[in-house]
């Protein structure tokens, strides 16, 4: 924990170390939650006592392109046996990309008692810590149905249009080839493309993975992050900021970095992202 506290983040307590998690495995006030891109990972082995929150089956509405509603969140919370007082700690694969996405969705429902395990699954595994295939059984809880609030951390296309009309600050976290329009989809996801390539006008291209140390998945220090986002790219932490990617998952990682590690005052994630913008009729696009 001391290492995280010394990295200069504006909200360091949103991160916990693998040591911290190891010491709280049996803490009834803490629920460890794994959230991955690869659905095989959790069943193949996970932190003892951890539950899985799957982005497709748990966080998304099964019919509409939207997240679960308030009742759905209460049911999910009950299944993973948490109350509003439970500290939830997310971790996962790909430098916590999906863990940050789940964290962001939980914030829509006001579960602010939430943290991310720095380094995620990669660091835990590299440290040779215990993994198990046993899926824990917890009693269902009563979680009061929360109000979902999309207004603070989520942006919709009309708001993005207004934002660019006002010259607002945007961060496109996709790969450079997607940003320039050379690729209509992320390299490994050809089926999630768009009819048009390019980026939203004014957007700076800062690929999401620049925020993490590739060797252990931990977040870079505040100085290193400031060098990327503020000095190199000239972002203003005081300005309203919107992040986006292809469907809003990679950009939730950058949203997390800007809001909690660098203290940006007003950051929203545009989860419609390029799969919406690149298919919309008559919206401005830059290449």
């Amino acid at each position, binding site marked *: 924990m001391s290492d995280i506290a010394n990295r200069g983040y504006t909200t360091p307590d949103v991160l916990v170390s693998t040591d911290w998690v190891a010491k709280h495995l049996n803490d009834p006030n803490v629920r460890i939650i794994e959230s991955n*891109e*690869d*659905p*095989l*990972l959790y*069943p*193949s082995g996970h932190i003892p006592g951890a539950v899985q929150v799957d*982005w*497709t*089956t748990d966080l998304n509405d099964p019919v509409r392109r939207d997240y679960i509603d308030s009742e759905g969140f209460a049911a999910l919370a009950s299944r993973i046996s948490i109350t509003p007082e439970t500290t939830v700690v997310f971790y996962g*694969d*790909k430098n916590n990309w999906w863990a940050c996405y789940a964290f962001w969705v939980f914030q829509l429902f006001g579960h602010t008692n939430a943290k991310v395990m720095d380094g995620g*699954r*990669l660091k835990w*595994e590299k440290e040779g810590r215990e993994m198990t295939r046993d899926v824990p059984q917890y009693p269902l809880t009563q979680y009061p149905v929360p109000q979902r609030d999309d207004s603070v951390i989520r942006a919709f296309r009309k708001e993005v249009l207004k934002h660019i009309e006002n010259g607002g600050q945007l961060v496109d976290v996709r790969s450079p080839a997607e940003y320039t329009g050379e690729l209509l989809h992320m*390299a*490994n*996801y*050809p*089926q*999630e493309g768009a009819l048009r390539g390019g980026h939203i006008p004014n957007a700076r291209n800062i690929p999401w993975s620049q925020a993490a140390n590739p060797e252990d998945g931990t977040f870079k220090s505040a100085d290193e992050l400031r060098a990327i986002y503020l000095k190199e790219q000239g972002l203003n932490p005081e300005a309203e900021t919107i992040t986006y990617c292809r469907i809003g998952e990679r950009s939730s990682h950058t949203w997390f970095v800007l809001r909690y590690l660098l203290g940006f005052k007003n950051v929203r994630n545009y989860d419609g992202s390029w799969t919406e913008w690149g298919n919309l009729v008559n919206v401005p696009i830059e290449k």
Partner: protein
Amino acid sequence: MSEYPPKLAEVLEDFSFITGRDERVAFLIEIADRFPAVKVTPNIAKPPYDEAHHVQYCESDAYVWALEREDGTLDFRFDVLNPQGLSAKAMCVILGETLSGEPLGQIAAVPKEIVHQIFGREIAMGKGQGLMGIVHMVTHEAKKRLT
């Protein structure tokens, strides 16, 4: 499925009976657990591996080797450097177990789309192109020797 090599056809038939996500995941993990049997051995190659064996577009850093047998067929070996590359390992096991020793013409004709039959809907946000890249590399090795 008759155009596929018989062992591959059998595996694909097994997958065709799977209806639930949990069942598919459990089956794939069971397959991935057999990865050591198809993993490249140090007498064949040691890291850092030659880039010529590297699968393009695979986030899990998969590598493929095709070893020629005396009868002219191929023995496929793999490595997956990303310890979290479980789907890639499962794909390698299926290809190694079902295509090694099969007629080159049949291997060359295996379509990349078997990835969808194996991984089902999960592939939509899964390893898609990377897994297809592994299939492509294996079939390409067979095609090279046919021409």
